[in-house]
């Protein structure tokens, strides 16, 4: 019985000795906070994918087509948009601008597509792609704080 007690007391003594080994190594620590605000990726949806002006002739009057562009993104963030065509005959109105997403993260704008017919010649096919690009205008950049 005495032997057992002695063994137990040796074990108890060795436990604090092991715990203090980190103090022997003189461990020191410093910390640094890293944060980032996640914003929803932008999505752009156009009311039409194709506008077909049908048969036209030189100088014919063609009605313009308003195109609704619906956006989704981070609520209250501001965006800017730009619309361009890769050809010479499509006419565009409202080709650039800015706006802000609502609290529901939705936004929309119109632009207008027409056709310039005065330079068209017989049998000419018009095949142009109109590109809508939307970007966040006020994306906050990285900042660091010195201690």
């Amino acid at each position, binding site marked *: 019985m005495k032997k057992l007690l002695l063994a137990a007391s040796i074990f108890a003594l060795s436990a604090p000795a092991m715990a203090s080994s*980190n103090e*022997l*190594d*003189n*461990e*020191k*620590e*410093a*910390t*640094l*906070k*890293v*944060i*980032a*605000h*996640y*914003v*929803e*990726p*932008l999505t752009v949806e156009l009311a039409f994918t194709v506008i077909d002006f049908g048969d036209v002739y030189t100088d014919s009057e063609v009605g313009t087509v308003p195109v609704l562009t619906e956006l989704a993104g*981070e609520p209250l*963030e501001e965006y800017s948009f730009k619309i361009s065509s890769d050809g010479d005959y499509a006419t565009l109105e409202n080709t650039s601008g800015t706006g802000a997403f609502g609290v529901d993260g939705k936004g929309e704008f119109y632009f207008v597509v027409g056709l310039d017919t005065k330079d068209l010649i017989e049998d000419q096919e018009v095949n142009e792609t109109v590109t809508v690009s939307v970007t*966040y205008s*006020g*994306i*906050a*950049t*990285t*900042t*660091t*704080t*010195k*201690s």
Partner: protein
Amino acid sequence: MNKALLLPLIFLSTLLSAADGQFYINGQAIKDISISLGVSSINFGDVYNGSQVESVLVDFYVNAEDSYDYRVQISNDDSSGVLQMSRSSSTGYTGNNITYINTANGSNQRHEFYVDLATEKMSDKLSATIFLMALYNDIPE
């Protein structure tokens, strides 16, 4: 009766003379290791899934006893893998711990690492803490 009292006293004095001896205590006092960090927080601002962010350089100083080796460990509590760290700005980014050993020269030694985000893994805001640790390596016991 007198004899009986005398006998234990003789034994006692013999025991006391046997306890006479010497031993030495050796130890070396070494400098308290210190670590100082110039940056307390990094705010990457607005980021979205797949956006490009510039990596941020963080430098810190370790001061320890000349010619002693110390271990530096850089870790973080981000479990999503978004937070990436490397000792080189262009390669070697990892979400895991960075550990290396350096030899002290007795004065402030500059260390640096870079912090970046793997934004393609993001779907929520990031709030994480980076822990820097410096400790003596192989202190003789």
